[in-house]
Each structure stands twice: as structure tokens, then as C-alpha cells.
């Protein structure tokens, strides 16, 4: 019975990982990845690993999305020429 919370979070992580893979657009994938980071932190907490959860929170909630979104922005800016950058 006390494992219910572990099962719930495990299933959520599995579903979120699937969603992160099927989203083909990198910007939308970054959104799902940041949710995956938060869910993984919750999973690590219920697996009694608060240190790892902190690590995942620090990296997954802000750093990785920022890196991916900056990359997306750079490539989008390359894609459209200067004139419509206004």
C-alpha cells in the first residue's frame, strides 16, 4: 500500500517520456522535457533520494529548457533572413 505513490509517479514518468519522444517540434519537446524533469524529481523523492532530486530539479526545470530554447531560437533566426527581423 505504501508503494502506491511510487507506482503512480513511475507511470507518470513513463507516460511523460513517451510524450517527450513523440513531440517532433523541438520547442514543444522542450516543454515536455521540463515537465519530465519535475516529475523525475518527484520520483527521486519518493525513492528516498532527495540529493538526486535536487540535482534533477536544478538541471531539469530551468537549465536544460533554456539551453534547448536558445538553440531553437538561433536556428529559427538563421532560417528567416534579416528583413523580417524588423
Amino acid at each position: 500500500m505504501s508503494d502506491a505513490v511510487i507506482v503512480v509517479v513511475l507511470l507518470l514518468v513513463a507516460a511523460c517520456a513517451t510524450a517527450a519522444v513523440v513531440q517532433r517540434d523541438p520547442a514543444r519537446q522542450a516543454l515536455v522535457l521540463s515537465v519530465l524533469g519535475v516529475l523525475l524529481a518527484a520520483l527521486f523523492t519518493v525513492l528516498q533520494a532527495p540529493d538526486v532530486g535536487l540535482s534533477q530539479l536544478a538541471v531539469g526545470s530551468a537549465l536544460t529548457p533554456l539551453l534547448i530554447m536558445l538553440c531553437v531560437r538561433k536556428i529559427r533566426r538563421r532560417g528567416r533572413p534579416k528583413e523580417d527581423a524588423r
Partner: protein
Amino acid sequence: MNRLRLWLLAVGGAGLAALLVAACLDLPGFGGRRHPYGDRAVQASLARHTANTISSVNFDQRAYDTLGEMSILFAAVLGCVVLLRQARDEHRDRPEPAEVARPVRRYALLVLPVALVTGLYVVAHGQLSPGGGFQGGVVAATALHLLYLGADYGALERVRPLGVYETSDAVAVCAYLVLGLASVLAGTAFLANTLLPYGTFNTLSSGGTVPLLNAAIGMEVASAVVVLLAHFLDQAVEIEEEQGS
């Protein structure tokens, strides 16, 4: 061609999945009682007065392993700096100042110091409560970038002299190595935790060299993340390619 590739992938994936499931069936059951390494690590950590066993494993029992992790981190940041440097056919555009809604700007300005102090707290208490240099460093570095999110890139550049962070990254790596060598000079092994007294259990000064190595890692991670994000931000915001290239 594409269809063939998909079939190949399906066959390979099914094989991999079957092997993984077979391996899972043979693993010791989830939540089992037998953790010989874990029990010994906890004993060793308590013997050295380190309240957070995970920090003790990272910075004392397996400090040499952390040195390896740290050099991977250093090399990865170095690689990013080399890859994202300004090429000859690129020039810098001054980013335009951005008009951000007032509550968002104020939130960023107020939360920046709070997040920074929280990050430093996580680093400083790495050997006591959950946390440590790796986590706290990332938090402190992220806090700085609230200035970009809440205002514009120019504001961030004004409080972020990049050379200082590059230097402190290198200094932190050297500090870790020097702490390791200090124990060699004291007559024991490289990175052995015998240099300092172990202190009172569950206080800030407990754990011998663990807090110092922890702080070195915190400094290294924080400056590494700042340098990394600086180059990505330069690419995304400032650097433009020459027209007609």
C-alpha cells in the same frame, strides 16, 4: 530505403527490449533488504562525522571518481566555448533593450538574490542536509540569468564579467587538485580525508575536507554553467552572420 531502416529498427528494438526484460527478471527484487555496499558506506560516513552520506561518498570515499566527473564537466565546457566562439564571418549586434512587463521585472530583481543565497545555502550545507556543490552551483548560476529573463541581455552582461567566471572555473579545478595533493604531502594517499579534524557531527565544520571539496565543486559548477550559458546566449541573441555569405 526508409522502410528497410524502420524494419531494422523494429527488429533491433524488439531484441533489445527482450534482453532488457530478461535482465530485469534476474535483478534482485525492488526494495530488497540486502545492500552490502550501502551499509558499509553509511558506516564509513558516520565514522568520519559526515551527516550526509551521499556527500561523503562523493567527496571522501569516491573523491577520485568526482575528480573524473569534474574533468568531464570542464572538458565539455571547454568544447562548447571552442565550438561557439565568434567566427570570422560573423559580427555582433547590440541587442535592443527589451520592454518587459513591470511585475515580471520586479519579480526577477527580488528573486535573484533570494535564489543566489539559496544556492549558496545548498552548497554550504552539502555535508549536512540534502544538497552539495553540484546542485547549489547550478541554482546560483541560474539565479544570475534571471536578469536576462526579467530584463534584457545587456543588463546581464553588465553584472557578468565573463573573464572572472572563466578564471574562477579554472581556479576551482586547481583548488580541488591542490586539496588532493595536500593530503599526499601530509603523508597519505591522494584525496584521502585525513588532513583536517573531523569535527562535531552535524555542524558546518564536520567531515574533514568534505566541505572544502564541496565548495570547490560548487564554485566550478556555478562558473561552468555561467560560461556555458554565456556562449549560448551570445549565439542566440548577439552574433549575426554576415549577409550574403
